[in-house]
């Protein structure tokens, strides 16, 4: 049984590692400015964790194999050097790894969530609700109308609770059900939720951020390639959660302007 176990551990380790290495299932290509740094950070961690994984599982298997024969009257041997070197080793290795990862990681994190937003960023207002995202472009006047929760009427297509009767800013707001953005231009999303917590996740952007009712959360990104990808909700929000999704369309500047005009015409 012992030998079988040793083999089993080794086998499982090899197979699972192989699948990781072969990238059989891997991240989708990234299309954002922060993407590459996140990917490389993930890869570094993957290598470090992978090595530790293989080494420790094999050590376990090896030791099991070595002591597997219960009949043999071997003398009991202490681990050379006792616990202290292990403690030092673990602390040093892991400590260094931790420091390294944190240093690089915090820089990436800063670029993703804390870096100042460029002035030329395109502002898009995002509202999440059960179970759809709606996006709002300020229109020609460049200012958003004020949302009034009490005026929200989804049946009449008033998802943001705008009040065009009394609010001039609101009249030219362009409300869409999918997010279109021009390529290579910083985008600033102002995220708010209508009812419960939701989340904004675009794997290709390597970007995720929760919507929190009662808060308006800024989130900025820059897409680097023309593409059409999905935006999904990752915060459990009710029975329709699995189907709370829409599309992100990254377009050339020209296409984007045309798209925006078409949308405006339909309002």
């Amino acid at each position, binding site marked *: 049984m012992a030998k079988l176990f040793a083999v089993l551990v080794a086998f499982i380790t090899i197979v699972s590692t192989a699948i990781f290495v072969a990238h059989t299932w891997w991240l989708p290509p990234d299309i954002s400015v922060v993407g590459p740094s996140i990917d490389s950070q*993930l890869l570094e961690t993957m290598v470090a964790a992978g090595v530790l994984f293989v080494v420790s599982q094999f050590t376990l298997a090896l*030791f099991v194999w070595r002591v597997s024969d219960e009949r043999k009257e*071997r003398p009991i041997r202490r681990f050379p050097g006792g616990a202290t070197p292990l403690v030092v080793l673990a602390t040093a290795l892991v400590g260094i790894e931790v420091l390294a990862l944190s240093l690089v990681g915090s820089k990436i994190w800063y670029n993703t969530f804390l870096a100042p937003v460029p002035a030329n960023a395109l502002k898009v207002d995002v509202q999440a609700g059960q179970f759809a995202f709606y996006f709002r472009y300020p229109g020609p006047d460049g200012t958003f109308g004020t949302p009034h929760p009490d005026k929200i009427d989804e049946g009449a297509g008033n998802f943001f609770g705008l009040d065009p009767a009394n609010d001039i800013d609101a009249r030219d707001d362009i409300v869409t059900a999918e997010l279109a953005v021009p390529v290579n231009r910083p985008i600033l999303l102002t995220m708010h939720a209508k009812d419960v917590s939701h989340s904004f996740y675009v794997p290709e952007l390597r970007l995720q951020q929760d919507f929190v009712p009662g808060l308006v959360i800024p989130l900025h990104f820059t897409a680097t390639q023309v593409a059409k990808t999905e935006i999904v909700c990752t915060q459990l929000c009710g029975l329709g959660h699995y189907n709370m999704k829409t599309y992100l369309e990254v377009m050339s500047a020209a296409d984007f302007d045309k798209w925006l005009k078409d949308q405006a015409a339909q309002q």
Partner: protein
Amino acid sequence: MTTVSTPPPVAHHHGPPTRFIQKYIFSTDHKVIGKQYLGLALVAVTTGMVLSWYMRFHLAFPDAKAPGLGLITPEQYLQLMTMHGTIMVFFVLTTAPFAGFGNFFLPIHVGAEDMPFPHFNMMSFWVTLTAFLVLVTSFVVPEGPALAGWTAYAPLSAVGSGSGPGEGLGQTLWAISIAIFCIGQLLGGLNFICTVLDMRTKGLSLARLPYVTWAWFITSVIGLIAFSVLLPACILLILDRVAGTSFFIPAGLVVNDRLLNHAGGSPLLWQHLFWFFGHPEVYIAILPGFGIISTIMPAFARKPLLGPRVLIGCMAAIGFLSYTVWGHHMFLSGMNPTSAMGFSIPTLIITIPATIATLLWIGTLYGSRYRFTTAGLFCLGFISVFVTGGLSGFFLAQPSIDTYLHATYFVVAHFHFVMAVAAIFGIFAGTYFWFPKMFGRMMNETLGKWHFALTFTGVYGVFMPMHYLGLAGNVRRYSSFPAEYMGQALPLHRWITVAALFTGAVQLIFLYNLIRSRFAGEPAPDNPWEATSLEWSTSSPPPFDNFGGRHLVVSHGPDEYAVKGPRGDYIMQADPP
């Protein structure tokens, strides 16, 4: 065995109960209560596993009718998921390794005859059972149980039935159940701590406590703090739901075209309170596992644990650090991103004591004369799965990577390996190890070893692929994956489902072994494993007062193996100096 003739000063005697009710139902005997907890855990784990089968079935075959449920609707899926999580975390991973084994063996390990407050102890179980019953009741209420997940994030969990089926009465029952559960665990933890501090027999210094006893002690301290925070959180949640207060519900929410008249509440407040409990809860589940492994391995390795003090230090460090890291569940929750780094560092630091503990176990294995009993094998399995689960923590502890992996199956894989599977392996090890002492009969080793081998293979088959899903960006908590999103993951989901059903079926071997051994197993000697701690110095099963009127004097450490002893290569704690 040494016995002292003069008993310590006592308040009053209470003799063994004679009536059935007192003896087996409303018993104040810690051994009976321990068995009751384990029984509850067995019922709960079976329920939880069946729920997960339905989830897996639906994920693999979204359009197929599930036996008994028919076509599973999205809300049913979320309800299955919520109940699976809640039942497993609270009523299995908290009760079995801690309340169950702890109740039975903690007093014996310290040479006591019972806990200091037996009636609190009895209440602790019956309160916990009530909590469980309240929870399962929600299966039969209109619109079914809660669907907000075991984390019950507000406002979804707070705004009421408008936000979805199960968010009416079901969610209220959930909150009440968890509140009750907290009370039960507080009563239990109080007893554990006092037992260790005040009930230790002559010569049993803290340093001489078995590692598992240390683990239970540390766990009960963690639990005492954690549940003292979850209880108020649940009370506030209940008030928001039934009394119209606004602790967690902000102003201007429109649920189903209806403007709620709540104002000013903070959804993040719930998350902070919950995770301040929630992260330590993970260690409440796994630390007893640490203790069980560290206690059992030397007995089978026939050599003392490598670095005993270090291990206890690691467990204490983990216990302490567990209160500094709750924010790593909230990197993307909308809290100030700067604080994410503050939570990330201690999270990564926790890996240090965890790594050390692992190395100590592997080092103990080195050069040993290991006896590959089922319990011993589960210890080795524990090491393997704990390492696997721990390493994925490296990814999630980093905010920058969590940005991508958060809320994907990578997380599911991580916590299942590190807290669910590892903890369960600890429970299995404990069961095979202590069953003879608890019931006076041996378990069948052949069945046990098959159970181990198949379970070990099975869990890797189930949870390893979830890492791949996560890397591919496959989101968790989805009842199905519409073709245009994550459609290509379906084959992998099918594989996982098959593996899950297989692993589940394998557990029938364990169940059969358990029942068969209980009634027809080999009679167990007092010390079948040639182990040293005090439970092995009394009969199997122990008498009502644990030591038959004897008061043991301890003059040895918990694992004096590989020495010249009166019986062989070991000296028991109660042996004369």
